[in-house]
């Protein structure tokens, strides 16, 4: 261990300011802090610091994503073999899905980190960890057969225009992973919408419609049972199908206090309420709670809406933010059938409104405090 530490220090010295290879410092710093815990100690202020840092938060989110991912890998293979009518063991299915996922994730990390690294070099700041989760999320919300170059273009677009334009991780107001998906959705609609894309290399005779699109087309009779919707043995992207795996992740996120339970709960309440109202008025054939089992609603609620950078940061603002995401997602689903996946658009929309909600909450707090001061004076 000392060997590594010393080696790293030596390299670090070579790249200090003024040395010819200083331009590589941010890359070095990224690798160094990736492999070894940082050597910085507190200088002023509190002498002890919490052990948690950004890297730890990011890895926690990734661990929370694992159940959904593992299930997704199996399911992609399972759906594939199901559609071509072959029997396959669990491991065959899983292996198939894994081989579908691997190139996606390599391409995502490759192109995303490249952009991040270039900008970190040019601007001379550190390469932030934020992209680790983004790059992990992007393959999970794409169809399994999406062409790799499209993933690459979408990732570059999302990192460039979702993040770097605004100054990098922490300054962005749109969720970059969702932006990548939205980019594909609008730029290459044929690879991400329609019935053909959600099963990997399916035979032609089988319609691979996701349950969500079945509902939106009014054919609720062929809907899979609620149980298989909950378990997740339905066509879809890697991450979104298994509700139970997502819930496992949600429990971890809430317990470790990485993601806000307030947002998750209020998204679900918003969705339930709106879904029930639409069902009661007859605008939508399925029950309110069934919306939660369809499409990416739950995945978005747990992993996307709670992104700490793009969500509201005031506590009461989180309830409003979450509720509106849930409500708008269902409204888009039910009323605009051109866009069945309303969750993505709802979250992106509310990302834009999050600062406004925060502003209102802060103004309320100011008013409240002013009143209290006046009361004291009297």
């Amino acid at each position, binding site marked *: *261990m000392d060997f*590594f*530490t010393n080696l*790293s220090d030596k390299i670090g010295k070579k790249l200090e300011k003024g040395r010819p290879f200083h331009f590589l410092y941010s890359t070095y710093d990224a690798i160094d*802090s*990736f*492999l*070894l*815990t*940082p*050597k*910085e*100690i*507190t200088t*002023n*202020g*509190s*002498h*002890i*610091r*919490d*052990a*948690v*840092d*950004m*890297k*730890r*938060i990011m*890895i*926690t989110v990734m661990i929370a994503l694992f159940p959904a991912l593992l299930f997704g890998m199996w399911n992609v293979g399972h759906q594939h073999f199901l559609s071509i009518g072959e029997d396959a063991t669990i491991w065959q299915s899983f292996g198939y899905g894994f081989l579908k996922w691997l190139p996606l994730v390599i391409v995502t990390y490759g192109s995303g980190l490249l952009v991040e690294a270039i900008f970190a070099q040019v601007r001379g700041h*550190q390469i*932030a*960890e934020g992209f680790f989760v983004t790059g992990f999320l992007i393959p999970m919300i794409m169809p399994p057969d999406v062409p790799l170059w499209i993933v690459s273009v979408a990732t570059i677009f999302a990192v460039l225009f979702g993040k770097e334009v605004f100054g*990098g*991780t*922490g*300054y962005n107001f749109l969720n970059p992973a969702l932006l990548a998906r939205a980019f594909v959705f609008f730029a290459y609609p044929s690879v991400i919408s329609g019935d053909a894309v959600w099963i990997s290399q399916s035979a032609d005779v089988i319609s691979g419609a996701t349950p969500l699109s079945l509902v939106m087309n009014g054919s609720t009779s062929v809907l899979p049972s609620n149980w298989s919707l909950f378990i997740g043995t339905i066509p879809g992207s890697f991450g979104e199908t298994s509700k139970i795996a997502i819930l496992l992740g949600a429990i971890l996120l809430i*317990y*470790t*206090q*990485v993601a*806000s339970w307030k947002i998750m709960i209020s998204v679900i309440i918003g969705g339930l309420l709106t879904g029930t109202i639409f069902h009661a008025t007859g605008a939508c054939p399925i029950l309110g709670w069934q919306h939660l089992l369809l499409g990416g609603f739950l995945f978005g609620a747990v992993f996307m809406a709670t992104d*700490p*950078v793009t*969500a*509201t*940061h*005031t*506590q009461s603002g989180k309830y409003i933010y979450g509720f509106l995401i849930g409500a708008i997602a269902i409204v888009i689903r039910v009323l605009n059938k051109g866009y069945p996946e309303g969750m993505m658009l709802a979250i992106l929309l509310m990302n834009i409104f999050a600062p406004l909600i*925060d502003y209102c*909450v*802060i103004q309320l*707090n*100011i008013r*409240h*405090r*002013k009143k209290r001061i006046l009361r004291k004076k009297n």
Partner: protein
Amino acid sequence: MEQPGYISTIYGADLSEILKNNNVVSHFSRRHRRHDATLRAENIRYIAGNVLTGKQMTQFNATHFYDSQVTAIAEGGERKIIGWLLPGLRKWSFSHTYLSWLYPSQFTNKENNSNFLIYNTSLNGGRRTFMMTDVYDKVFPFSIIPLSLLKACLTQDIEQMEELGIYEVDDEDFALCEVVCPSKMECQQIIRDGLFLLYHNA
């Protein structure tokens, strides 16, 4: 310390005199052996005051007029390979992201009241931009939105600072925020700068 306790002394007493009979190093290294066998005398930080707000002293510093407490904790900065991936059974964290919450007794040592053994001065991460996790609000007791106030101080928006209640707080109030901040912000310094700005513009 080997023998924590109260000592009555004069203002300006030499720290080394006070510590003469206390073998801090051996105490630390015994307790710490499992983490850091190489703990040496220079790797102990003496703090005038408590760990949250106190000032760092050298071993031969004199105690100050206002100081009534001297704290000694181990310096951090040891480097572990891929530390952010390890379960972290002995890392103290306010959140539950490390598995140390499975083993809470390590944080309180009833034997001699020296609770700071597990803590050290590592920053435990790099400086980042504000990530709006809920931690500030959990450790901040006033009806003030700490993050907004910090941001107002950073942007030197005096009017906003006043409205958000800068007059009701002191930099020490933000010590806990600073401790738990995953972005490793120097909250106390930010507030101090904000107060300073007010003072100069008043």
